[in-house]
C-alpha cells in the first residue's frame, strides 16, 4: 500500500486537523468525540447534521457551512460514527428549533444515528437517503444512500437557512430524496489503509456495475466497454426509476470516486446530458467533480434529480462550505 500517511491510527485525526486549519474561516473541529461544526453555530434555525464513515471526502465535513450542514460526524474510514458523536454534536449546535439528521441508508449509519436520536432529549427528525438504483426498490435493506445525499443536503440546507421549520425541512428533504436516483460503476477497487491492499481483485478488462461508496464489489462484474455503453447502462437504470417526462427540468450530477481524471468525468457528463436531452429533458443545473468519493477508487456515479421551482431556488441559494461555494 502506498499512502501519504504517518500511521493508519493517526490518519483520520491528522487529516481532520489539516481540514480544520485550512478552513478555519468556515469550520470548527471537536475532538473526542470527533465532529465538525460551523465556525459560528449561533443562528436560531433547524440544525442539519450528517455523518458517516470517512473516506468519502469532501462529503460530509466539506459540506459544513452557511447554507448547508451545521455539523458533520466523521467515523473511521468506511465505518459509521458512534452515537456519541451525533449526540454531542447535536447538543453543541442545537438552537431550540430541532435537529434534522441526514443519513445515508446503510445499516451502520442508520443504527448509530437511531441510537443517538433515542438518547437525545431535543426534537429530532431523520431523512434517510436511499438513491442507489442499482438495487431494486424492494431490496431487503432498502437501497443504499450514495451521491444524491449531497443534493438533499444542499437543498434542505438552503431551506433551513431561510427559516423553514423542522417538519418543512424534513418534508422537503424527503421530496428531494424521492426525486433523486443514482448509480455508479467502479473501474478499480480502493485500498483501505487499515487493510493495506485493494478490497477486491478486478480483472484488467473488467468493471463493476452498481457499486456503493465503500469500495465494495458491485452488483455484477462486466467487461470494460465504451464510455457510451457504460453511461447508457447507468442512465437507463436511473431513467427507469425517475421517468422524467419531456420538458422536465433536472439536476445532473456526475460524481467521481476519487481517482478518475476530471477529463473522464466531463466526458461522462457529456454523454449523460445527451442521453436525457435526446428525450427532451432539460439539464437545468449540473455538478461535475469528486464529491462523494471512495478513497482512491476509479469510477464514477451519475445522479439525476427532478427539479421544481422551489428546489431550483434552494439549489441556487448562497452556500459557503469547503467543497461547495457560490453566491457569496
Amino acid at each position, binding site marked *: 500500500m502506498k499512502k501519504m500517511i504517518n500511521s493508519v491510527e493517526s490518519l483520520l485525526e491528522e487529516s481532520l486537523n489539516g481540514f480544520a486549519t485550512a478552513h478555519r474561516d468556515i469550520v470548527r473541529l471537536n475532538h473526542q468525540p470527533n465532529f465538525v461544526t460551523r465556525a459560528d453555530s449561533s443562528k436560531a434555525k433547524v440544525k442539519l447534521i450528517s455523518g458517516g464513515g470517512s473516506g468519502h471526502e469532501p462529503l460530509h465535513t466539506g459540506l459544513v457551512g452557511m447554507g448547508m450542514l451545521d455539523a458533520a460526524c466523521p467515523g473511521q474510514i468506511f465505518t459509521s460514527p458512534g452515537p456519541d458523536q451525533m449526540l454531542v454534536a447535536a447538543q453543541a449546535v442545537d438552537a431550540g428549533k430541532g435537529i434534522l439528521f441526514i443519513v445515508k441508508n446503510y445499516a*451502520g449509519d442508520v443504527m448509530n444515528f437511531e441510537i443517538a436520536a433515542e438518547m437525545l432529549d431535543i426534537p429530532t427528525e431523520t431523512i434517510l437517503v436511499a438513491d442507489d438504483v442499482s438495487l431494486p426498490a424492494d431490496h431487503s435493506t432498502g437501497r443504499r444512500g450514495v451521491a444524491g445525499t449531497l443534493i438533499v443536503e444542499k437543498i434542505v440546507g438552503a431551506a433551513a437557512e431561510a427559516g423553514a421549520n423542522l417538519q418543512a425541512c424534513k418534508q422537503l428533504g424527503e421530496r428531494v430524496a424521492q426525486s433523486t436516483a443514482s448509480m455508479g460503476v467502479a473501474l478499480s477497487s480502493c485500498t483501505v489503509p487499515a487493510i493495506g491492499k485493494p*478490497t477486491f481483485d478486478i480483472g484488467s478488462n473488467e468493471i463493476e456495475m452498481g457499486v456503493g461508496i465503500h469500495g465494495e464489489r458491485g452488483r455484477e462484474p462486466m467487461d470494460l466497454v465504451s464510455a457510451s455503453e457504460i453511461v447508457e447502462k447507468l442512465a437507463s437504470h436511473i431513467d427507469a426509476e425517475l421517468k422524467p417526462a419531456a420538458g422536465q427540468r433536472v439536476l445532473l450530477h456526475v460524481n467521481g470516486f476519487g481517482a478518475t481524471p476530471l477529463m473522464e468525468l466531463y466526458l461522462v457528463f457529456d454523454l449523460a446530458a445527451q442521453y436525457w436531452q435526446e428525450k427532451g429533458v432539460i439539464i437545468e443545473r449540473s455538478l461535475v467533480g469528486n464529491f462523494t468519493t471512495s478513497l482512491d477508487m476509479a469510477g464514477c456515479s451519475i445522479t439525476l434529480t427532478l427539479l421544481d421551482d422551489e428546489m431550483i431556488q434552494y439549489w441556487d441559494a448562497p452556500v459557503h462550505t469547503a467543497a461547495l461555494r457560490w453566491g457569496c
Partner: protein
Amino acid sequence: MSEQAIPLSQLIKNVHQCINAHAEEVAELDAAIGDGDHLNNLQRGLATLESMSAELDQMPLSDAFSKIGMSLMSTMGGASGSLFGSMFVTMGKTAKDQPLTLVGLSEVFSAGVESIKARGKADIGEKTMLDTLIPASQSLQQDAANGVPLETSLSHMQQSAITGMESTKDMLATKGRASFLGERARGHIDAGARTSQLMLCAIADEVIKYNN
C-alpha cells in the same frame, strides 16, 4: 448479580488474542462481501476494553456490561459497533435482575441477542452475526433449563456457534452489506458471524479452563 466469577479482564484479553490470531482471515471475510473494516472495528473496540479492564474488574457485572456496551458503540462504530454495543447495554440492564447462575447468565445473553435482532431488524438466516448468536444463545438457555453441567453446556454452545457460523457460507444475505451482492455473496462466511463465534468460543474455553 454483583460479583464476577472470573475476572472480565481475563476474558477480554483472551478474546482479543483470539481475534488477533485470526486477523487475516477476518479481514478477508469482510473484504470479500463487506467493506473490509470489520477486523479493525473489532480490534479498536477490544483494545479499548483491554485498556480499561482493570477498572471493569472492580465493577458489578451489570455496570461493567453497560460500560462495555457504551465503549464498544463509541470506539467501534459501524454496524457491528451499534449491535455489539446494544447487546452489552441490554445485558447490563438485564444482569441487574438476574442471579449469577448459568440460568441467569443464559437469560442475560438471550436478552442481549434479542436487542441485536431488534436494533438490526434481522433474524436467523439473513447471513449475519445472528446466525452464530441465536443458536448459541438457544443452546445455552436449553442446557441451563435442563440442568446440564456448566462445562458441557459451554461446549454445546461452542458447537452451536460453529455450526451457525458455518451455515452463513451458503446463505444469500438479506441484511448488512453482503445483501448488496446478491448471489455473489454465496460461498463466503459472514465476518460478523465468524468473529461472534470466535469470541464466544474464546470466552467458553477460558471459563472451562478457569473452572478446572
